[in-house]
């Protein structure tokens, strides 16, 4: 299987894989193309000319609700979720390396947070705020709701990372007289930086795209996915696709920045891998 010639199985599976990728990306590519539809064009092919009419339309406030505002809110919320997810997951990952009372409970809570349907979290937080007489808002209740989705991913990634982490680096740092804070700051964090970027990617993108958990928690002002969802029911022009293109563009930019910085860190590490003989 691993060796020898590539038989018919390889070509069959390869073709299957290509079809799967086409299935994954095809529709997104289609709306990317259709978002450049001419001013008189509709929701489906053929293209009636090529223009950026629908993108302009998108940024005119009265046409499609509050696109700019919801984009801004989703960006801020995503960034805040990212920061908290990275810090809380990393710090919890450190804690979980020692057995402590309640570690099992917290682990199972994280799993529960992943598998309890999103709509129940949304409903629960919405009801809680209602019972308490508080107004739900995107920066309070929705923020918490998003964290219940991103933190389990962060924690599980940190588990996987710390399981492969060589503790001798820390011991070496300690033997050289580093305090525990210095060890974390100058040894652990730099070694784990690529994984922390990965956790940050999860934190931002999952929050930025979250729909169900925002539904009853966002309050008066919509986040972007809620705004888009609202548009699907009453907008029947390619402006919908322009919105899709912009949103997906933001996601891809974030993914690209994350992947490129991980690659850059790896390459730099390969170059400066050993600092033997370069004592400061």
């Amino acid at each position: 299987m691993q060796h020898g010639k590539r038989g018919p199985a390889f070509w069959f599976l390869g073709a299957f894989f290509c079809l799967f990728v086409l299935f994954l990306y095809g529709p997104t590519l289609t709306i990317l193309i259709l978002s450049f539809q001419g001013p008189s064009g509709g929701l489906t092919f053929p293209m009636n000319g090529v223009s950026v009419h629908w993108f302009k339309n998108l940024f005119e406030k009265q046409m499609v609700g509050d696109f700019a505002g919801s984009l801004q809110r989703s960006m801020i919320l995503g960034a805040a979720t990212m920061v908290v997810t990275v810090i809380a997951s990393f710090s919890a990952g450190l804690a979980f390396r020692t057995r402590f009372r309640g570690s099992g409970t917290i682990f199972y809570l994280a799993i529960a947070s992943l598998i309890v349907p999103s709509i129940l979290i949304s409903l629960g937080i919405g009801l809680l705020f209602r019972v308490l007489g508080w107004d739900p808002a995107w920066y309070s209740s929705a923020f918490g709701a998003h964290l219940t989705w991103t933190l389990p991913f962060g924690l599980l990634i940190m588990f996987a990372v710390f399981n492969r982490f060589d503790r001798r680096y820390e011991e070496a740092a300690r033997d050289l007289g580093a305090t525990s804070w210095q060890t974390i700051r100058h040894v652990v964090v730099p070694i784990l930086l690529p994984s922390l970027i990965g956790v940050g990617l999860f934190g931002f993108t999952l929050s930025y795209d979250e729909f169900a958990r925002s539904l009853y928690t966002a309050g008066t002002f919509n986040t972007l996915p809620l705004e888009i969802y609202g548009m699907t029911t009453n907008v029947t022009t390619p402006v919908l696709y322009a919105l899709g293109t912009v949103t997906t563009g933001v996601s891809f930019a974030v993914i690209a920045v994350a992947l490129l910085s991980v690659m850059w860190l790896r390459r730099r590490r390969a170059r400066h891998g050993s600092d033997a003989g370069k004592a400061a």
Partner: protein
Amino acid sequence: MSRVKLWITYLQVAPLALVFLLFLIVPIATIVVVSFFDYNTTQIIPAFLLQNYEELLLSPVTWRTYQQTIQFAVITWALTLVIGFTVAYFVAFYVRSPTMQTVLFLICTIPFWTSNVIRMISWIPFLGRNGLANTTLMNLGLIRQPLEFLLYSDFAVVLAYVHLYTLFMVVPIFNSMMRIDRSLLEAARDAGASGWQTLWNVILPLCKPGIAIGSIFIVTIVMGDFVTVRMMSGGLSASVGLMMANAMSLLQYPAAAANAVVLLLVVLLIVAAMMRLVDIRKEL
């Protein structure tokens, strides 16, 4: 372990624990409490009634909705399992260079970090009445009239589920496959096993934990879904999530809460059954 160290450990885990306490445990507890409340058209009234559950469980609509939701879950599970396993199998065993494996794996996972709502919208130009699928089929002379069932139907719902969630199967199964000791496959071949026999008797059993994790994701997501059903069926299909959302929009919060409790119990039962097959903590 010294006292100070123990305190540091607790401090380190505190932010995480606090979020789960405030935004997971307390809200779920609120749902349970509210599910026993009374309500009228304008407000909810604290009480201890079983009426919400009675109305829910005695209504044939509830049973039909649960049946349809479970049906969606089973169909989606079967499709994502077959597709996800095949895709992971190709990347794990047929792609030789590790760099290429990483690249292909990333290609499969990148959509996970983009918007689900947009990915659903992107089916409109394909499946709509004048969409690509209908136009192509008509041009080929295979059909005379546009197929109406493509968009806004159960078919579209399942298609969207498979499109959105197959990667929840691919990732854990791929992870399991990459941990399989390659010498086992060699041993199987040396012992005279054919490709199929190796797949069936060696690889598949070793992928069970990955399959179980993927299945848990798929089943819980589909069971709790409401936006996919709403968007892809155009309101023609029902799901438990949609039923709850409808109750919420009518301000019948206690009714929605009772339904939420029932849904949670059903999902937890299914997950508990699957967890018996796998120790998740060993998989990281």
